[in-house]
């Protein structure tokens, strides 16, 4: 497979959130601010790259019958590594993401890529696929996070971007759970529309 294509696939053409619609749980849950989105996206990217590499390496001597449990052990190991190092070095981010980090284990983006891509391709392409899918995921989360943070809190990355009067009584629904569904719905509609026009 063409490596260049693999590397760019995750951003638009096969974006895990908007096109493949994988990993919706963290997408909906953590995107209430850009910082949370970035933290979640980058942690997922790290786990995705590492698990893709390991899965591509061990695919030769993992019996097909137990491949799923082996993949999950690999993924869970990297998630726990992220959890512990983040707790030690980035306590503030860990506090706001704490609940969602262990959930990366069951994020279907990661198991999905391990099963659909890494277990069929070599280490290099799998690494590129991990980078591409991970960054595509981060990009999608940050976009949703940016829209929700601006509308729901009047800030972007914690800095005020809208007038003070708006910040005092913002459009709260954007930052609450329904806002996540609405934002994702609109973004998917826009992307589908653009795809059709092509």
């Amino acid at each position, binding site marked *: 497979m063409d490596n260049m294509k693999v590397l760019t696939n995750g951003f638009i053409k096969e974006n895990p959130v908007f096109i493949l619609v994988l990993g919706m749980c963290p997408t909906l849950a953590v995107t*209430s601010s850009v910082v949370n989105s970035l933290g979640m996206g980058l942690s997922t990217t790290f786990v995705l790259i590492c698990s893709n590499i390991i899965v591509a390496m061990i695919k030769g*001597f*993992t*019996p097909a*019958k*137990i491949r799923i*449990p*082996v993949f999950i*052990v*690999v993924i*869970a*190991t990297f998630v*726990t*590594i992220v959890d*512990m*190092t983040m*707790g*030690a*070095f980035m*306590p503030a981010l860990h506090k706001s993401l704490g609940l969602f980090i262990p959930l990366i284990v069951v994020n279907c983006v990661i198991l999905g890529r391990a099963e659909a891509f890494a277990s069929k391709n070599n280490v290099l392409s799998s690494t590129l696929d991990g980078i591409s899918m991970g960054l595509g995921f981060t990009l999608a989360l940050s976009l949703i996070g940016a829209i929700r943070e601006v509308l*729901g*809190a009047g800030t972007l990355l914690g800095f005020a971007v809208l007038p003070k009067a708006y910040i005092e009584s*913002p459009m*709260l629904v954007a*930052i*609450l759970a329904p806002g996540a569904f609405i934002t994702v719905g609109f973004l998917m509609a826009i992307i589908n529309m653009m795809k059709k026009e092509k």
Partner: protein
Amino acid sequence: MKYYIKLGLILLAVCALATGILAYLNSVTAPMIAEVKRVEAENARKEVMPDATDFVKKTMVDSSEVDTDLYFIAVNEAKEPIGYILTVALNGYSGVVKTVVGLKNDFSINKIKVIEQTETPGLGAKASTPAFAEKFVGMTLPQLMVKKDGGDIISITGATITTRTVTNSINAGIKRLEEVLKVEVTNG
């Protein structure tokens, strides 16, 4: 048969390797995480009792290390006790709300700080803001109730439950501390 044993052994080897790596990493990061937590708690105590120079740790229940069972006596430079610090917690609208409370010697509130909450963003989550903590400064036990319940604490608009949670948890915490101190006085 042999094939299935082989499968089991491969799975065992994978898990053993993963466990080994994590056990090592845990031994490295566990003390660092504990240190981060300790510094955080220390900072919260300093914030609610800025005049104190040292905190003497005490426990309300024998040998309990749960933070809501602990209290601290705040002392100034001359080693005189100037107040107490409590950690209180109660279930709010969507999870536990934990507050650190600084009390003066007469049990009036010096300052409070909500250190843990998962309340609704924009409504209950305002409990973490300094403006909310401001409402409690100088309050004493009989005043420590939400206005609707007959006290002096004005609720956050749209978040009476959160306000009530914080208020009631502090109220109960002070009562508990008074009980404990009373027992200590009679005992010794």
